[in-house]
């Protein structure tokens, strides 16, 4: 075999192994998997903080998914499972943080900024209007303007 065909065979084997590895995931009840997916989409992976628990490949995320899967099997409600996560990792694990005293600024801050911005804008526009002085043309300027217009 030439070097190239050996490489091709190796590549094919590698792909086969990769696909095999995907198929070899434990087969779980699709209903449980769907609930698990829905829950883990709302949770942050704390190892790689900009990823959901559903998408993360971190080993801790895998253990947490297993834990959640087992709790679903044990008949826990979604709320109980989210509470389980926040009791251990705090509200930070939730992508949708609850509205409470410590998160008021987070939730209402943008609206506050919008209101302040609008007020400032209106005040500025009003100020501008008074700053532009109306200066009527004198009779002499009128005559010059008319002359210029006629020449055009």
């Amino acid at each position: 075999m030439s070097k190239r065909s050996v490489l091709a065979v190796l590549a094919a084997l590698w792909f086969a192994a990769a696909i095999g590895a995907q198929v070899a995931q434990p087969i779980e009840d699709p209903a449980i998997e769907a609930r698990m997916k829905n829950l883990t989409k709302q949770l942050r992976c704390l190892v790689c903080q900009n990823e959901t628990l559903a998408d993360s490949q971190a080993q801790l995320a895998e253990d947490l998914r297993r834990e959640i899967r087992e709790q679903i099997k044990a008949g826990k409600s979604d709320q109980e499972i989210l509470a389980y996560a926040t009791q251990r990792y705090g509200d930070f694990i939730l992508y949708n943080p609850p509205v409470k005293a410590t998160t008021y600024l987070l939730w209402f801050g943008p609206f506050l900024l919008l209101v302040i911005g609008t007020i400032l804008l209106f005040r500025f526009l009003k100020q501008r209007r008074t700053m532009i002085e109306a200066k009527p043309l004198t009779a002499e300027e009128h005559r010059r303007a008319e002359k210029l217009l006629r020449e055009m």
Partner: protein
Amino acid sequence: MKKLLFVPLGLFLLLAIAIAVVLIRGRDPHEIPSPLINKAAPAFQLPQLHEPRKTLSAQDMRGKVWLLNFWGTWCIACREEHPLLLDYAKENALPIVGVDYKYSSDNSDERAAAVQLLAQLGNPYSLTVYDDNGRVSIDYGVYGAPESFLIDKQGVIRFKQIGPITEEVWRKSIVPLARQLNNE
């Protein structure tokens, strides 16, 4: 009108100062405040690393001020912390209990690796337990080993360190707090 000209500059300076303060004095955004501080340490009963037939529970440590340290042989920062822990252990300030966390997706023999590592590099732990599937580690909200919890005589978590216990944290936070809790 001239005055307004300096408003953006002022805002910029305020922003710059705010960012500088957070960068210099603020906490690492990767460090998440633990909801477990001042709460009862989650109960556990785990097999010991060296003698799997024996167990240790949180209850066994009642009446002691102790440090619970989560680590694993796969954890690079733990390797950094290890020589420091060896130094701290010599001071006999408080017992350090290790939890060797094995990810369930990790197919290597973590137990054997941990035993070997401690034999080779020294063992700072009064005792080490083995968390085979991470359940206890998850109960403690561990997400970035090493993580350490200072637990008081009543079994309440009083302090948490995420990442290696630096010399500064040991001297300025853990040792004084342990001394105070021991006198309570």
